Every structure is written in C-alpha cells, then in structure tokens.
C-alpha cells in the first residue's frame, strides 16, 4: 500500500484551510499512487477538529489525544506521530508549511532518515517516484526534485493546492500516546493572541501592504482602513522592510525575502518601491495593484494595475470605493 499521510495543523483544536488544501493535494497524489489518504491529528479535545477532518476527503483519521499535547510541542508531537506511523504504510507525508509544519516536519523527517521538500508549490508522481517543486532564492527560481528515500515528505505552501470535500465521512480512530507531559523538554507556557483578529498574512486572500511612501507610522491607518474595507476576515496588512526596520510596523508584517512570502489573490502595494527583496515575497500573487507617486518605480513592472498617485489621495478614495463595491 502506498498511503498518503497528512499531518493536520489543528492548533487550538481548529482546522484551517491550509490543512484542507494538504488533504486535497493528498487525494490527488493518492489517486496517482493508488493509495489511501490518512490524516493524523494531534492535540486534546479533538472532537470538533475530527468532525471537520472527517469530511475533507480522506479515508481515515487517526486522532492522537492527550492533555500533555494540548499545546504544540515539537518533541512531543514528533514522538506521538512516530508511535502511529509504522502502522500507516506511508509512502508520502504532507503538511501545510505553517508555523507548526515548519517545526514538526523536519523533526519527523530527520527521525525517519529521509528527505523533505519545504514550501512546495507542486507535487509530482512520475515513474513510481514522488517529487516536488518549490520556490528557491525567494521565488527567483524553482527547484524540482525527486525523492530517493522513503517516505517522501513535503510541506505545502498555502493557496497553492485545492481543498475539496469528501463524499463519504472518514472513519476516526482514536489513539493515545505512550508518554505524558514529563517526557517533554521544551514546553509552551503561554500563547498570546495578536491584538487584532485579522487573518494571518500567509492565509489571506487579499494583502494590503504599505511602505515608506506612507511617510510616518501614524499614517498606516490608511492601509488598515483599505484592508478593513474588504470585509471581516478577508484582508491582512503587510509592510516593506524599510518601515519594519524603522519601527513603524512589527516584523511579523514584513513581506519579502527576509520576511514572509505571500501568494494572495490580490496584493496591493502602497508607497512601496518594489525592491528585488520585496518582490521576492509577493510576485506570485494572482493580481498585483501598485499605488506609487513615481511612475518609474520598479513595482509598476510587476503590477497588473498601477495607479500613479499620492497614497494620501488615492487610498481614501479606493477605500470608499471598495467598501461600496463589497456591500453590493
């Protein structure tokens, strides 16, 4: 059997779209490799997560539950998953390239003595071998590799694979780890929620980003207002490194080579020049809009729709127009 195992990111008991996208990618791969799709989910009080995972298109859900695993723990989750993996005949293991996926998958891969592709944007099954394509050099090039070891492992970039719902509910198999909290060395003591409830940058369908053209931190509300105009939970706010380094915005909002790489449907760059390191973080957006007062700014070379103008004039007008359009 060549099963495809999906490790769910069910942080806080919630299953978000990137996990469902990974299941979707798994279903496609399983059809080619003629295997089943098995989801492994780790946490505590997993009933609501299981309900959602059951309907995601997988054949089976293995739910590892323990109070010791309520918060994410790299060593704990890896240990727990290593206990169930031998029974799953995994030919491939997939997970979203989320904060959890980035930390957990390399550990599993090291323990399984195999390779892994991180942040994959495409998966392949050719001549009986699994492979993947991923952006390298911050998206300036794409690297295609095939796996020489088993299992094949990959974390998947959000917004690149299609989530779909299953026709039949998967069977849920409950499991408990053999160890307790005392086996964990690094412990999460606190999870501090961000001050606002905006969608995380990398999951957002719309990103509105601001740069030095905003002139001062107190003007950034123009960028936030435009993001809000798209409606609740729709748009995230991003920033160029120049304004992050100046202390106007937190580092978590930085888009680019040394910040976050985003691939939303719509990216709106406001007062951002379009330096190569910034382009690296957003050039795969489906549509790019640029607002800059300099018609020669490099951002216009990649912008599907450019407006040459002053952000202080254009942003309020655009915010009003988007708010009106969203209402209809």
């Amino acid at each position, binding site marked *: 059997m060549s099963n495809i195992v999906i490790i769910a990111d069910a942080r806080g008991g919630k299953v978000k779209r990137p996990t469902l996208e990974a299941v979707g990618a798994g279903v496609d791969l399983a059809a080619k490799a003629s295997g089943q799709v098995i989801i492994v989910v780790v946490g505590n009080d997993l009933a609501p997560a299981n309900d959602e995972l059951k309907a995601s298109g997988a054949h089976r859900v293995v739910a590892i539950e323990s109070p010791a695993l309520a918060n994410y723990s790299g060593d704990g989750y890896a240990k727990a998953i290593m206990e169930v993996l031998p029974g799953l005949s995994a030919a491939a293991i997939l997970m979203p390239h989320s904060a959890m996926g980035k930390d957990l998958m390399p550990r599993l891969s090291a323990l399984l003595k195999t390779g892994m592709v991180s942040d994959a944007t495409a998966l392949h099954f050719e001549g009986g071998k699994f492979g993947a394509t991923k952006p390298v050099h911050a998206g*300036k090039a794409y690297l*295609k590799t095939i796996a020489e070891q088993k299992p094949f492992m990959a974390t998947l970039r959000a917004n690149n694979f299609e989530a779909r719902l299953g026709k039949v509910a998967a069977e849920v198999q409950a499991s408990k780890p053999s160890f307790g909290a005392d086996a964990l060395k*690094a412990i999460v003591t606190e*999870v501090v929620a961000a001050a606002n409830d905006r969608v995380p940058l990398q999951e957002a369908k719309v990103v509105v980003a601001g740069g030095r053209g905003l002139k001062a931190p107190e003007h950034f509300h123009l960028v936030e207002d435009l993001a809000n105009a798209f409606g609740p939970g729709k748009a995230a706010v991003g920033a160029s490194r120049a304004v992050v380094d100046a202390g106007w915005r937190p580092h978590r909002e930085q888009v680019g080579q040394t910040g976050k790489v985003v691939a939303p449907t719509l990216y709106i760059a406001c007062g951002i020049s379009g330096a190569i390191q910034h382009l690296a973080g957003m050039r*795969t957006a489906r549509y790019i809009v640029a607002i800059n007062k300099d018609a020669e700014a490099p951002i216009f070379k990649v912008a599907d729709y450019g407006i040459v103008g002053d952000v202080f004039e254009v942003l309020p007008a655009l915010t009003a127009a988007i708010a009106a359009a969203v209402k209809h």
Partner: protein
Amino acid sequence: MNIVVCVKRVPATDSKVRVAANGVSIDPAGVEYVINPFDEFAVEEALKIKEAAGAGSVTVVTLGAADAGKILRDTLAMGADKAVLLRDGGVPHDSYSTAECLAAYIKTVPHDIVFVGKQAVDNDNNQLGPRLAALLGLPCVSEAAKLTLQDRVFTAEREIEGAREVVRCPLPALISTQKGLNQPRYANLKGIMAAKKKPLEEIDAAKIAPATKVVSLTLPPERPPGKILGEGAAAVGKLVDALRNEAKIL
C-alpha cells in the same frame, strides 16, 4: 558555556539568479556571496550569551567548500573563538544530508547551545534547526524572535499564525534565529586583526548522500508587463472595474 553556531554561505539577496548550463544549479558568475542574513542573528546571540556568562567559547561551523572560509573569518572578526570548515567534497547536499553531516561533527564537541539561522536564503529550506535538534536529541525552539537565558533555561518567543508562543526550554538546547532577535554587530578593525590569529580548522565531512535528487532549476514565467491605469484618485473607478470584471475579486 560552549556554543556552536552553524552558518552558511549564500548569494546576496539582491543577486540576479541565472541557471547554470547543467540546468540544476545557479550560475555563480557575477554573484556576490555573503553569510546567510539569519545566521548573523545566530552569531550575535551566541556572542551576547558568552559575554553575559563571562566564560565559554563560540565555535562557528559550516559545511561547504573552501570558498566558505571567508564568511568563517568574518564571524571570527565579529568575536567567535574558533571556526570549522567541514569540507563537503563537492557533494550537492540537501537538508537531510546537511543535518546528518553537521550532527556527526557537533556530537564530537561540547555543546550547551547550538544556534542556527531559521532559513538559508538560497534554497529557503527552513529545515535544519528542527532536523539537527532531532538528531542531537536536543529540545529546540525554531524561529526564536526573543530569547532570555536564566539559570540554564531559555524563555523564547516565536511567532505563530495570529499569535505569539512563549516557550520554556532548558539547556542543552538548539535555537533557530528569526529576524528581530538582535542587531548583529559589525566587526571592528581590532576584531579583524584578532581573527587572523584565531583557529580555522578544516576537516572532511562525514560521507553522506542526499535523500533527494535535483531534476531541474528553472526560472519562473515572467509576469505580464505591468499596466498603468491612470493618475490619482480619478483612476480609482477604473481599478475597481478591473478588480470586479477582469480579476473577479469583488
């Protein structure tokens, strides 16, 4: 306090990437190579911890070819005590084999803390920290953006989706460093002179084959050339129309 820092030589972030004739790697012609930006945070944090402890040593290690010697000298000039070049013998390593080679070396030296950058900006793998931690049997915090060390226990903060995670992690431990952790120092003239006398050891890396094979390196399709809709607030109407009718976003 014995600290090991892993660093990698990578193309500068403003480099233009061209594909070499072999079709699987970048053409190094005209590319400027630098220490991976995230590894500078790792070196700085190691130096700060050693200075605060008032004792110990910082060893910087890289797996690569002889040309990685320059970034090792640079870290010695920043203040590291010793550098080690693990000669890769021309093997094109992936994350699996890099971690195995580095772990094989680190196991032979005392290490209370191992620092790595969160990601090397060449292949953007973002794997080495947790991999190495698993191989060395160390607890690990990846992408640490804030660190305090007290009584041999780290309190670390890392960003997750929509929140911050606070992690308690006892030594020995492995930390991967995120931007925001510190402001890396520049080497001064005294440091540069001192670096010339510091040990830079070269040893052959363990012979381990990569687990993945590169099929191709390709450039992404060019985006269609940009289109300017107009000037000022007057162009907003056109933009909203385009978003609604062409892009179908609204």
